[in-house]
């Protein structure tokens, strides 16, 4: 089986279109015959990543690769970076603004949800440079 690849540019300025890439991934995985449980995990992981890039990093890119045995999602941005990854991984910890909270975001569940939804989560981040997150969901 060939590797199936999807690439998205995530628009940082728009909360209205946030989630479009995740919905597209979901649709594609369904067409590829991936199980509902795996689709759900990928959807959650992708959506949280997408929202994080919109909230914190003024957008970024998302690359999704579907292999016969796994799905790999790479989210990359040139945002502020994460100064304390361990703290950011804590449920309920958020640096989002009041305005973001009022929209229903900033519950401090983004990274924890991404970790819970994937079999492997790797965070490469540098303050002032950006963040690259690689998530693997095994089929």
């Amino acid at each position, binding site marked *: 089986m060939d590797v199936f690849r999807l690439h998205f540019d995530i628009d940082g300025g728009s909360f209205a279109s946030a989630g479009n890439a995740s*919905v597209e991934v*979901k649709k594609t995985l369904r067409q590829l015959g991936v199980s509902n449980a795996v689709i759900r995990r990928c959807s959650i992981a992708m959506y949280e990543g997408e929202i994080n890039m919109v909230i914190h990093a003024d957008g970024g890119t998302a690359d999704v690769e579907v292999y016969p045995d796994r799905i790999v999602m790479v989210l990359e941005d040139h945002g502020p970076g994460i100064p304390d990854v361990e703290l950011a991984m804590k449920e309920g910890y958020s640096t989002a603004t009041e305005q973001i909270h009022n929209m229903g*975001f900033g519950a401090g569940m983004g990274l924890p949800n991404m970790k819970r939804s994937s079999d492997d989560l790797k965070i490469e981040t540098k303050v002032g440079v950006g963040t690259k997150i690689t998530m693997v969901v095994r089929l």
Partner: protein
Amino acid sequence: MTVHEMAEKLSLQTICEPDPDREVTGGYTGDLLSWVMGRAQSGDVWLTIMSNQNVVAVATLADTAAVIFTEGVQPDAGVRELAEKKDVNLYSSPDHSFAVGAKVAALL
């Protein structure tokens, strides 16, 4: 029970109903989108006071059967059109989330 039957029994205001035959299997109440995303189950009716476009994205990704805006909340501009396109059923109720949740639970 389909979402249409539920809406009739609870006298909900229908905002849009692109998938009236969708089966309701449970319910979830919450306004923090990440929380809902991670916990609502496929087939749930989702009760919320959030009214923005992101509700449609979360409902699509979590595969909920319908969204009920409670407390008389109406969706923001453009939300209904987006929901029609994404096959997301939207309703509204003047009652608060606890009251609506109790009614939905009684029907299940």
